[in-house]
């Protein structure tokens, strides 16, 4: 049951990415690039999603534990370190070049366009390389 609900939540997330237009690299690049084509849609997507998540964190803080689980699974990493900053710089470079981050990259695979498969293969390759480091 938990797995079916998770699948539905993934589905909702994916629909959100598509409806918001964030699966279109041009829309993201037109947010990142300041020229006459500037498109501020991305900031609205982020702001609305973050506001809802703030409510969820507030609820969880008051309640203490999630509804159907005993514990909260958070990252083991707590410190701001060079690994975090280096990674964020590299991700920023890749995102600024392509206009695609991992979520939209995954969803765009269904368009069956070679360029998105090439991009996603490279993402997997990058993740694989860092697993060895």
């Amino acid at each position, binding site marked *: 049951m938990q797995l079916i609900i998770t699948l539905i939540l993934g589905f909702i997330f994916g629909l959100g990415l*598509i409806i918001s237009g964030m699966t279109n690299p041009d829309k993201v690049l037109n947010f990142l690039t300041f020229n006459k084509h500037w498109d501020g849609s991305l900031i609205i997507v982020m702001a609305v999603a973050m506001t809802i998540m703030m409510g969820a964190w507030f609820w969880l803080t008051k309640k203490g534990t999630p509804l159907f689980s005993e514990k909260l699974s958070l990252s083991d990493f707590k410190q701001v370190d060079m690994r975090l900053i280096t990674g*964020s710089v590299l991700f920023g470079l890749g995102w600024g070049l*392509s206009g695609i981050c991992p979520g939209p990259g*995954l969803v765009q695979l269904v368009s069956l366009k070679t360029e998105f498969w*090439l991009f996603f293969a490279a993402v997997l390759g990058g993740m694989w390389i860092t697993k060895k480091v």
Partner: protein
Amino acid sequence: MTTEFTPLSAAIGGGLIGLACALLLIFFGKIAGISGLIKSLFNPFTKSSRWKLCFIAGLVLAGVCVQIFKPELLVGELNFPPSMIIIAGLLVGIGTSLANGCTSGHGVCGMSRFSARSWVSTCTFMAIAIITANLVG
């Protein structure tokens, strides 16, 4: 290519993304960080791999359904030479792996929790992406 400013669909889409992340957190105490989910594909299959695969399957299924019933919604192309697509993809893969998060995990889920790591990460990748896009575009 020119795109239109679409505040309404951006708000609806952002609302759905926020709803999915919020329910995953409230129901199961889990973080919807897509780069982490994708990276977990390299790990040996364990009990905790199951929900991750289900979330990924849901994401892909959303794409499939839109592609079948409303294909005009799923537009976009990467108009770059293949070498640049590979470089950008590698940078996204290496970067999100080292930073342990991307736009969803750090941007949406982490910043709303006021996590220092997520704020540093998101501000850094946003700033670098803006500089990069303006220099290249």
